[in-house]
């Protein structure tokens, strides 16, 4: 645990002291997701229509693309990873520390945007009772789904970053991967017979999505842990 804390401390310091360009994307996301979209959708934003739901699930993906590539491929590009793996710290602590901080930051940004969005919508509604996301159960499920998609993107990002020579290459591959994944999900959903989708309740659909994400997360995280080995990194 102490090794994990050390790497998380390092990642947080490194993240906070990044260049100005590192803050442009989060700032842009906060502006769009926390202010512009809630102002556009107004009550529909709070009532969790389909569009806000898709945005909530997609934003962590966008953030992760930028940050996980920097944490893995960037560190190799800057030649700091070699010195780190020459120390006593374990491969697992290095990888999990990086993933936890990146996921925490990106998911934290999503939660912050949602809370800010709620405040913005309430301010536009004038005096009256304070409104929050409804139904609350769906909002909480969305938060869990958002966390799982962030972890999925982070684990996939680790695998891509390990095979990429530069941060830019990693980011490009991840963006391409996101587009392909989006098309695959859309294709699968479109191909499902209407009788199947009609026979499922919303709760059942959400449960299936949760299960699929948990399984994918577990597989990709395991694959990342297997791939992130000193002997491979030193040759990479």
């Amino acid at each position, binding site marked *: 645990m102490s090794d994990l804390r050390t790497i998380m401390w390092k990642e947080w310091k490194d993240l906070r002291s990044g260049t100005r360009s590192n803050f442009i994307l989060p700032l842009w996301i906060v502006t769009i997701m926390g202010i512009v979209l809630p102002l556009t959708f107004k009550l529909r934003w709070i009532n969790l229509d389909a569009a806000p739901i898709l945005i909530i699930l997609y934003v962590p993906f966008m953030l992760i693309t930028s940050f996980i590539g920097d944490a893995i491929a960037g560190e190799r590009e800057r030649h700091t990873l070699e010195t*780190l793996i020459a120390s006593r710290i374990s491969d697992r602590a290095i990888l999990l520390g990086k993933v936890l901080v990146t996921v925490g930051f990106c998911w934290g940004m999503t939660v912050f945007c949602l809370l800010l969005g709620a405040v913005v919508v309430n301010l536009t509604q004038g005096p009256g009772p304070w409104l929050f996301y409804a139904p609350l159960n769906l909002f909480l499920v969305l938060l869990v789904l958002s966390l799982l998609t962030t972890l999925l993107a982070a684990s996939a990002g680790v695998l891509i970053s390990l095979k990429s020579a530069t941060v830019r290459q990693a980011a490009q591959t991840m963006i391409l991967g996101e587009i392909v994944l989006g098309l695959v999900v859309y294709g699968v959903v479109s191909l499902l017979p209407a009788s199947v989708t009609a026979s499922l309740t919303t709760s059942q659909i959400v449960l299936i999505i949760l299960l699929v994400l948990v399984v994918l997360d577990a597989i990709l995280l395991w694959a990342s842990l297997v791939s992130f080995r000193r*002997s491979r990194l030193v040759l990479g």
Partner: protein
Amino acid sequence: MPESTIHTEHLCRSFGRIAAVDDLSIDVPSGIVFGFLGPNGAGKTTTIHLLLGLLEPTQGQARVLGFDTRSQADEIRARSGALLEFSGLYERMSAEDNLDLYGRIYRMPGPERKARVKELLTHLDLWDRRKDKVGKWSRGMKQKLAVARALFHHPPLIFLDEPTAGFDPVAAAALHADLTSLVTREGVTVFMNTHNLAEAEKLCSQVGVIRNGKLVTIGNPKELHSSKGGQKVEIIGRDFNEHILTALQARPEVKRVELQINRLLFELGADGKVGPLVTLIIQSGGEVEEIRRTGTSLEDLFLALMKEENK
């Protein structure tokens, strides 16, 4: 502590068909600065990777600080420091945080880390710049900080991979001075890769020369001079000519002689004496004003070894 800090037996590491390290057997005693010399691509960096247990040998074995590099690599890395090919500093973090990170990695308590940061940065005249982001520093300052980081947790052994590569002579001399003072003060064993021969001659009490993954020779620089190289002598005077040169070239103790303006440069065998040569010059009409013994540099020795290997 074991008698030999590093002991390798027939150590080999191949990448496909290329043997990066080939049958390497060395012993590095405790408390010395060991220089590992070789041209680019000779296998020096791979050797450090093998000794740190970052790579597994394809054949042979190595023990570092008494631990097997295959099965006890964690123990080796816990007890050693490393400055590899690149400084490996986090340029977006301050100097203080860079050192503190490695203190945390080696589980040093907070107050001890603080004291150690102050001690090392003060010693290296970097204390006033401790809050600076390292990315703003000169290359020499970064490399000094990287040496401090390698020594931060008081390891008994440190690995340095070409610590002054690409430095100008002034920066290299400054780093040598800091390195010598730190190493002496901390009493560590140093395994240093270099192709800077002046650096090896200045800092190392033992050197190994590697070429194409194979160890060419190993020993104390002085011993290597006497076994492999001859003496270098320079005679300054007047009226030196081709006739004198031919007579000198015929002498058995003269391995090589070169005539320059008012100057004769000799390379003599290990037992060669200068007196008879001076007599010969004077008898042949030359006038001798000054005699200088310059000795064989490690560079000459290194080039001679590389030449022998090429043959």
